[in-house]
Structure formats: C-alpha cells, structure tokens
C-alpha cells in the first residue's frame, strides 16, 4: 500500500454550508486536488452522474436529498467509490447508518483540518492500492465462495450478495496476506487509517460480518480464523 497516487485526484465536495464549503474547497485545492462543489443533494447526484471522481466528501443534512440517499445512489453505481461523511450529527445511530449504507469513513463537525486531510489522503491511497491489486486478480475463489473484487459481487454457493467497499478491502487484505497472522492494529492502520488504540472493536465487527458471508458455520470458522491475542489469519 505504498504506491503513490495518481496526479490531481478529483474530489466531489457536497456541503451546503457555504462558508465551510469554501474553506474546504480552498484547502483541498491547496493540497492539489481538483474539487467540484455541490451545494445540495440534486446538484451532487447530477455532478456525480456526469463526471468521474476519486473520492466524495459528503455532508448528511442537505437540501433535496440527504447524505444517506446520495451515498446509496453512489454505491449502486460505483461500489468502490470512497465516501467520507462529514456531519454535525454525533448520534451513534447516524454513524452506524452511514457506515452500513457504505460510507467508508465518518468525521463529525467541528473537525481538525489536518485530520480531514490525512483521512482523505489515506482513503485515496487505499483506493489506489485496491485498484492495483484488483486489476491483477479480479476474481478470487475459496471453498464455495467466489468474490469479484471489481464489482464487489459475491457468491457463497447459496446466494449472491454485494460487499461494501470496506468489507472488500478487509477480505482483500487478509487474502493478500494469506497464511500470515494479520493483527487488528495492522488492519486498522492499513484499511481504516485509524488510531489503533481507539477502536479495535470495529475490526471485530467487520470480521463477524465477513464470517457470516463466507463461512458455512460462522461460529466455527474455517477461512477467517482468530489467532488468540494476535489477530486473524486467512486460510483456504
């Protein structure tokens, strides 16, 4: 995950608070990103449909369509598009809802400029890494499972389903490091770009979800195995 990202990534910034939007636009442009600004949900969807972007910074409370609706629209069209939700709402339900719909990260207002820029950088880096490894090997099979890392469609032998971009990145990371122990810290740092001391539970929750998808008996996993007080290991 150390490859440099492509020049001038394009960011769609969806924020209806004009002052905040302008300040963000200035800072992102200064960082070398190409920024398109949408002031409401309609504009955001229009811009997204008509242009190519590398990342979306998305507010939740917006006119016409809220951030959740926009995230859904984006996910349907582009399952891997990194979405960073930016919002004044701090309720845990909002965070859960955002992440369930498929936001990759979540920052609450007021936020620190440095943290925002770091997260955006991390998300773009991960996207680049992911795209690179996917081009090399888009379809991966293990047991009865088949994952298409391009469109994130999966088949576990019983049904077809869709992974979120984070789920895909975690399983991809585990597969890349097959038969090696991957620590929670490593996952948090490389997939989430988060401070590992804060939220190791996040990793466990995602692992539980992945096991439900891919294991015949999630309580007795064969592929994604826990290594006591170390982390996880992928075996097939």
């Amino acid at each position, binding site marked *: 995950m150390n490859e440099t990202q492509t020049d001038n990534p394009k960011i769609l910034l969806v924020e209806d608070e004009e002052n905040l939007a302008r300040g963000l636009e200035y800072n992102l442009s200064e960082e070398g990103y190409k920024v398109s600004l949408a002031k409401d949900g309609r504009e955001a969807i229009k811009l997204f449909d008509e242009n190519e972007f590398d990342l979306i910074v998305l507010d939740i409370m917006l006119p016409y369509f809220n951030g959740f609706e926009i995230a859904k629209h984006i996910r349907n069209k582009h399952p891997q598009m990194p979405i960073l939700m930016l919002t004044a709402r701090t309720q845990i339900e909002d965070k859960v809802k955002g992440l369930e719909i498929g936001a990759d990260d979540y920052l609450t207002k007021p*936020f620190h400029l440095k943290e925002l820029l770091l997260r955006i950088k991390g998300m773009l880096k991960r996207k680049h890494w992911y795209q690179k490894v996917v081009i090399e090997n888009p379809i991966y099979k293990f047991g009865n499972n088949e994952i298409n890392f391009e469109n994130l469609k999966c088949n576990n032998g019983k049904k077809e389903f869709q992974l979120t971009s984070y789920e895909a990145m975690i399983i991809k990371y585990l597969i890349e490091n097959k038969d090696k122990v991957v620590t929670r810290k490593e996952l948090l740092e490389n997939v989430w770009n988060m401070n590992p001391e804060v939220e190791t539970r996040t990793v466990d929750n995602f692992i539980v979800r992945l096991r439900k998808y891919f294991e015949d008996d999630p309580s007795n996993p064969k592929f994604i195995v826990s290594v006591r007080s170390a982390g996880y290991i992928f075996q097939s």
Partner: protein
Amino acid sequence: MIRRRHSFAYNLIIFVLAQLVWLAVLLLWIYWYVKNNIIFEQVGENISPQIVYDTPSVFPFVGGIVLLVGLSFSLVLIFRHLNIQMKLTALYDNFIANVTHELKSPLSSIQLYLETLNSRDVPEEKRKEFYGVMMRDAERLKNLINSILEIAVMDKKKFNKELEVYKVDETIKKIVLESAEQFQLNENIIKFSGDAGCDVLLDRNSIKTVFDNLVDNSIKYSVLPLEIEIKFRCNSKKAEIEFSDNGIGIPHEEIKKIFQKFHRIYDKDIPNVKGTGLGLYVVKEIIKNHKGKIFAFSEGKGKGSRFKIELPIYIEKKKFLKGNKKGFKNE
C-alpha cells in the same frame, strides 16, 4: 420519527384495551346485578309471598357506575396529557438536534479558517476574506445564542426591554437594510412602499431580531431570485408593516402552526433544511410584547409568504400622563 409513531400507537392500544376492560367489568356487573335481583325476587316470592318485597337500594349500584365513569374520564384526561407531553418531548429532541447543528456549523467554519490561517501561507487578499467569513460566522453564533436566551426570558413572561419612541417607516427601513447587509443581500432586492410617519414604542434590538428572522426565512425558503417587499401604513390607532416575499410560501394547513415553538415545516421541495423552529415563535412573542399582532398569509405553496405586523401607535399625551421618562428618538 419511527420510534415516536410506534410508541404512540402502543399507548393508544393500551389505552383502548384499558377502556374495553372497564366497559366489560361494568357490563358484567350490570348483568350480575340484574340476574341476581331477578332470582332473589322469584325465590322470595316462592318462599314467602306474604313478605312485602322491598327493592334493594340502587345507591351502591348507581354510585359504582358514576365512580367508574369518573375513573374512565380521568384516564382519558391522563392519556391526553401524556400525548401532549410526548409530542412536546419529540419536538424538543428535534429542537436540540437542530440547535446542535446550527451551533456546530458556524463553529466548524471558524475552526476550519483558523486552522487554515495557522497552517498555510494564505495570501493577504484571501486572509481578509477569511476574516470576514469568520466574523459573519461569529455573528451567526451570537444571534443563535441570543435567541435561545431570549426564549428563556420569554417563557418566564418577563419583558424588560428598552422601549423608545421611533418613527415607523424610517426606523424599520433602517433595520431591514441592516439585516440585508448582515445576510449579504443586495439592497435592490428589497422594495419599500407607502409611508408611516407615525410613532411607535419599540425595543430596537428586539425589532431587529424580528426582521432578521423574517429576512432569514425569506432567504431560506425561496427558490427564485429573492424579492422582498415592505409596505407601511398608519391609521389612527395602529401602524401596519407588511412584509412579503416571492418564496415558496406556506401550505394552508401549516399557516396556523408556523408561530408555534419548535415547529418546522418539512418539505422535500424546501431547498434549505436548517433551522431551530424558534424564528417565528420569537417574532410572535416580540410583537406580542410590543402589544402588537402578527398575521401570516400565503396563497399556498409556491406563491410567496406575507406577514402583517400591527403595532399600536404611540401618542405623546400618554407619555405625559403616565410620566414615562423615555425620550423621543428619531432616527
């Protein structure tokens, strides 16, 4: 929203069931009483027809029914009260969420610009622009905090403002233009007509809040290029100020509710979803405290809104009679 609806339905079902239980008890009771009475009469006649059968006292029976009806009635009252409380709590929760949002937005903006200025080499011109933005955001925060504090005072029914005498048209015109400047509106957007050279007693700061809120609403609830029209008129008793815009208007069923505390109109077509639900409540209370009245009109959705404010005219004689020491202020 969903949770609220669910708990309302839940309460309603429990309430209806409780009422049905009471009714069933009552019917059983009547049935039991009538049946026993008939048997008692028959048995009594068979055993000893000579005994003059005295009808048992109906007092406990009627009394019981009255008590039951009373109980049932009080249950209805408690149920109604509970529902009102629940609605208020829901509105209040909503209000807290909205206020949090309204407080955090300008704060985030100020923090962002400060951090930008601190960490980047910002050109002088941009620097000035950023200071301007921060000052406007600080002003926004101040206004919001003031209106929340004002609500607290209003709720205690205290109004200890600095009332002074002003000429209606001149003063209101100045106040509205100040609001326009604050919201960065072009002066041409606002048209004034009519004249009202009569005097009224005003607390200038409160009246400024009134027009700030009205202008803010017009900006928020408009899709077309904004036009605001203000008409003045005086008659022998009152001064009339009519404030109208070309915004999206107010749906008929909402007109009565818009002045209620925390009430907000939710509509997919309304382009701006921000607000606390306090604006028009504050407006109404301020006007009320000036012994005036405010009415809202709208031809319906998409046809603009019109607010008519009536303020009692101040006659100098009164000042003299009441020994009011407040001075005459002419702007």
